[in-house]
């Protein structure tokens, strides 16, 4: 019996899924952490603006959002591997005989 080898799509999907999980954790930790430390319970007098946004919104949300867009481009354009998704199961082989046509 040959040694079991995972399907290549399964292997790459696992690898990419782990990277995505790390990106989500990093974005959540930074954004929620920064906003909580700098955007909660302040007074109107302390309000300053960066490019029209309240300071904490710009550094806590707008800036990481831009980083995420850049990372998404890198991830989608170069990290994710193209794979053959395989042949479609022909409809006549469906055990319920769905096809209709």
């Amino acid at each position, binding site marked *: 019996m040959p040694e079991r080898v995972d399907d290549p799509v399964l292997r790459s999907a696992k690898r990419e899924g782990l990277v995505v999980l790390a990106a989500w954790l990093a974005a959540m930790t930074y954004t929620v952490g920064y906003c909580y430390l700098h955007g909660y319970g302040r007074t109107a007098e302390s309000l300053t603006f960066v490019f029209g946004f*309240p300071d904490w919104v710009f550094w806590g949300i707008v800036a990481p959002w831009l980083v995420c867009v850049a990372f998404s481009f890198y991830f989608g354009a170069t990290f994710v591997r193209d794979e053959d998704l395989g042949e479609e199961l022909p409809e006549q082989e469906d055990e319920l005989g769905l096809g*209709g046509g």
Partner: protein
Amino acid sequence: MIRVAHPVLAVSASEPSVGYGALAALIVFIAASMWIGLLANKAMQSGTFMKGFFLGNRGLGAWALALTATVQSGGTFMGFPSLVYTHGWIVALWIAGYMVVPITGFGVLGKRMAQLSRRTGAITVPDLFRARFNSPALGLAASLFIMFYMAFMMVAQFKSGALVMKLAWPSSGTLALSEDAPAFELTTQKLHELDIPAEAAGKLTALVDQRFSTIDEAKATLAELLTKDELDRHWAKILVAGQPIDWLFYIGLGIFTVTVVGYTLLGGFLAAVWTDLFQSVMMLIGVLVLFVLAVSLAGGMEAATRDAVANTSSDFAFGPGYDPKHEGRAYLPLGLAFSFFWVWVYAGLSSPAGMVRVMAGKSTEVIRKSIYLLSGYNLLIYLPLVVICVCGRALIPDLPPGKTDEIIPRLALLTTAKLTGGSFIAGLILAAPFGAVMATVSSYLVVLASGLVRDVYQRFINPEAGTHELRRLSYLAMVIVGAVAVAANIRPVDYLQAIVVFSGTGASATFCVPALMLAFWRRTTVAGMLAAMIGGTGTMVTLYALGIAGLGEETLIGPVTKFHPYFLLGIDPLLWGLSVSFAAGILVSLCTRPPDESLVSRLFDAEQNIESPSS
């Protein structure tokens, strides 16, 4: 005694012609959607009816997948703006999870779902559940859960669509923004029908037949007549009794329903996706145009924030958010801010309507391109929307609580009132929320109809049904779903966003863990899948039931709505739902007999290792 919040509002209120151009733009929009439905109808003729009508013959390209697979809904353009208007800048943190939604939505499950659905020949999500485990019962359970959550979402979406149509109706700008039609008037008959104690009802006789231009004004008068306790207890009933029947809302509901059900009937899944793509582009244009108009009318983003703060309090600019009722409510405390980074990500990752679109993707190249296309798109939609609604608070400071859902349509009418051709521009902006709602409803119609016809009728009632019968039943199912959604809106629901959130997070708590187990864990069993789904749904429904019933500790967090969950330990129910679903799925799978190895091997092993590929 007209209460006008902003000078420009008076201009828009006195120009009934505003509505004609807006209506013209919406009619063009509706006609375009119908035309796309016809094109889709021709395009799907190439394959079999079921795969063409419900899955578009697996031919989606990157733009179609990116801009249609995740949620821009009525919630995006009605509920979400209402939250920004009510609570302020903190809602930017509430929605911030969308920065990673494109990468999580396509990067985790995308490839595997597309692959598994091909290998099993699955057309719907329940199809995939059934085929992966060779278990018709599991497919049926998945289908029933999907229909349960989508029913909630549909009701909310139909209200959104009707609202936009109503506001675009000729002279409805006047109706909505002036006191020509009273916002509140309690007639003698309505007072008799009011189900409140006689003592309180007696005090209301002084109010009979008085016309109030705003709800706030009526409430202030009521506060003088009733005790605080009586007012708190009976306000909701008195409000319903005092609001005149809104015929424009019902006309809007009718037109919306005929349009969206019509084009979805014509072209099925492809019509839903193509019109969704067209509407997504319209939404982007609408948001960007409104962004420019609203920011310039407000005198810049900084001025808008300062004015909004002046109209509310400094809490509008900071966390945990502005509390309009001054009752000590924290809209987004730390626990909820953390929770919503889960909510959007996992709701997007395992939304049944999203999963079926990934299954329809043409190739892995399409899936990976979708990641960065959607990423740019989300950035251009959500942050500008927050800014627009902050400007809304500066420009229209005193929308009453029940009307805050209308902030985007009202801003569209307000900001274009003085422009040449402004009416048509307003129509184009109004088309953005209208498009969002139509797109969502259309895709859910397809999923619900496929659930009823494919997963229930064809699988369990009549497996021998022919194409003609399936086609007829699919059409009938869509019409029935539309009719039910209209019936549920005879008395429109309050707080769109709360219902959208329940539906999205409930489906996520039910399907996220099972979808991950199905795709990545060989040891998953049918019992484990069922346990994960029941555990997720059970937890969500229990926590919402506790919150709505007012049981448990009053936490005073989250939005002001009766449709709210019980926030156990200050955390959103989704996290509890996912935790229970995860624990139940793993434990029950490990405690039950492992699945048939040949079944698993066909979907998990590299082809050269599979001993019996025809299993």
